[in-house]
């Protein structure tokens, strides 16, 4: 789950890390009021995506009137497919230097990775390529942790002057946030040294591991909603992984691998998959809601039901589809292929209840569906 800047900064503030003074505003009036209280401000679009500055979503202003104008211009903007519904109005800080700091889960090395660079404001991939000497990285032994002393050792040799202690404290603090908040990534870019000598997080990108949200219940409600279509939202509410696509052949399969493969074969045979939807794992009893979802996409002209049961029992999944079919009474053609756990009963049910003969090969089921959809 991604957190917008203001929500990420709230987590940093909660961990005792320095962030600029500011407030989330939903209207030009609120923005003006905030500027009146703070002074010169920066008005920043709050959307869970990068490149806000390049899209015109960040404006520096000196007066309350200008803050209102900036908010008016930014609210309602579309940035990378995200509609801006709120802005963060923050004190405009005098910046002396910009750094980069991040802690992320390095899945390849199975350890947290701490990154620091004296080149802030740039994409870290660019820094790694063009200024490798400016980038410090450390894979941390998570059983030992990462202290302020460890941070000082990491940044030793970089020309940070009086700011070194504050930078070290920030790095150790970000590590704690990574650990305590089950973050996949916590990134501060830029981490700024202000002209008054303070080191503060001017931006924050926080991504929390979805599988850990059950134990991050205090911050989870502040996470950003993924941009979803109405059908995708319905799928999510029903506990199903559904992705709507612009195609003509609906897909109902179990397991991520088999579902992707069904989509692949549809495309190989000249059709276009209309969705990703898998009902494997714990979701295998949700056949009824799943079918109803697939059929709700108006682009669907034919349907492939492809089951290969391992954990998921094909007889249970088939019964769900049959129930939904009888209830929804769709008129479009459907093509089955069923194998694995419970297949004899599943095939018998489909024959008996729907009068349809499943195909032995999934390729044959898909080929017929692609032809029928044209």
């Amino acid at each position, binding site marked *: 789950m991604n957190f917008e800047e203001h929500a990420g900064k709230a987590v940093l503030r909660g961990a005792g890390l320095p962030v600029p003074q500011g407030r989330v505003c939903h209207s030009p009036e609120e923005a003006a009021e905030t500027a009146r209280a703070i002074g010169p401000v920066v008005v920043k679009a709050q959307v869970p995506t990068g490149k806000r500055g390049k899209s015109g979503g960040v404006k520096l202003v000196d007066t309350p009137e200008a803050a209102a104008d900036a908010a008016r211009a930014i609210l309602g903007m579309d940035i990378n497919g995200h509609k801006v519904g709120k802005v963060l109005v923050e004190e405009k800080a005098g910046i002396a230097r910009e750094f980069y700091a991040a802690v992320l889960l390095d899945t390849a090395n199975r350890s947290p990775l701490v990154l620091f660079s004296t080149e802030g404001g740039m994409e870290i991939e660019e820094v790694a390529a063009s200024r490798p000497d400016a980038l410090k990285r450390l894979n941390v032994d998570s059983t030992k942790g990462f202290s302020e002393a460890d941070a000082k050792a990491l940044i030793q040799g970089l020309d940070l002057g009086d700011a070194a202690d504050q930078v070290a404290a920030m790095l150790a603090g970000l590590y704690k946030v990574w*650990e305590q908040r089950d973050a996949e990534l916590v990134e501060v870019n830029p981490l700024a040294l202000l002209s008054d000598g303070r080191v503060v997080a001017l931006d924050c990108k926080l991504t929390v591991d979805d*599988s*850990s949200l*059950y134990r991050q219940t205090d911050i989870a409600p502040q996470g950003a909603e993924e941009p979803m279509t109405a059908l995708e939202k319905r799928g999510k509410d029903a506990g199903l992984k559904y992705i709507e696509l612009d195609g003509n052949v609906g897909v109902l399969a179990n397991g991520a691998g088999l579902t*992707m493969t069904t989509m692949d074969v549809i495309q190989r045979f000249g059709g276009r998959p209309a969705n990703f939807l898998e009902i494997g794992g714990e979701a295998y009893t949700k056949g009824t809601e799943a079918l109803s979802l697939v059929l709700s996409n108006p682009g669907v002209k034919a349907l492939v039901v492809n089951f*290969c049961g391992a954990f998921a029992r094909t007889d249970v999944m088939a019964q769900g589809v049959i129930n939904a079919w009888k209830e929804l009474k769709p008129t479009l053609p459907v093509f089955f292929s069923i194998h694995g756990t419970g*297949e004899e009963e599943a095939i018998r049910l489909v024959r008996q209840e729907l009068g349809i003969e499943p195909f032995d090969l999934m390729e044959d089921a898909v080929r017929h569906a692609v032809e029928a959809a044209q």
Partner: protein
Amino acid sequence: MSTAPLIVRKDTRVLVQGITGKQGTFWTEQMQACGTKVVGGVNPKKAGTTHCGVPIFATAKDAMKEAPFDASVMFIPPAMALDAATDAIDAGARLLVVLTEHIPARDVMTLLNHAKANGTRVVGPNTAGLVTPGEGFIGIMPAFNPLVFKPGRIGVISRSGSLGTLVSLNIVRAGYGQSAFLGIGGDPMIGTTTRDALQALADDPGTDAIVLVGEIGGGMEEDAAELAATIKKPVVSFIAGYAAPAGKKMGHAGAIVTGDRGSYAGKRTALEKAGVRVVDTPGEIGQALADALA
């Protein structure tokens, strides 16, 4: 990395953690019916009783004393998975099969590092398990279905259980059987990688050819391709995700394409450069094997 064997044998002694639940019971019965040597189960509340004909212990450590085991398989929900895995590792399990999906990533990291430090080989998380037709299986695969699994000389590696089932079915349909099915799991961070599994099959005298079933996301197939270039046995591959749109998680958390990394094209190119025959659909695997073994 642990040197513990990855291929299940008749004499592999298996402990089932979470044996008394509905799924634990169902799959323990299936494992037993396929000849798997299940020696005990764990449920702290039912220690001292018998379930599925085997003794139940409070912990894996207790089980190791009374009913020594080589491998443990976990039917344990995500929030309790780290504790259960730690128990099995500390008990001295050589092989730990973690079926659970949606374990917090930080717990997976801790689990894998603890296992490595103690010489335990982990398969998964989020795996459907390991099958050796005619000998036994550990996990949630339809090993009992003769249309899917039959003793033979083809080794199969798959991140996905459902797709692994389909591919296994195609292998049997083409007149072959499997020396081993190695389900390695759909998570982005797993204990036994595609490359590790490929090495195990390359070293297995019962395996003549290998079917590598991959999917988009991560760099495991690219990594395995380096090894594939050096082994003598033919490798045939199918990679899922040709039609997947970029940037979307396709069910498996590991199956996400970001930038160039993890893309279908990148994986296919890496494997083909290593001399691996990559097929367009699972139905072509039989013919590809026939060509490779001719």
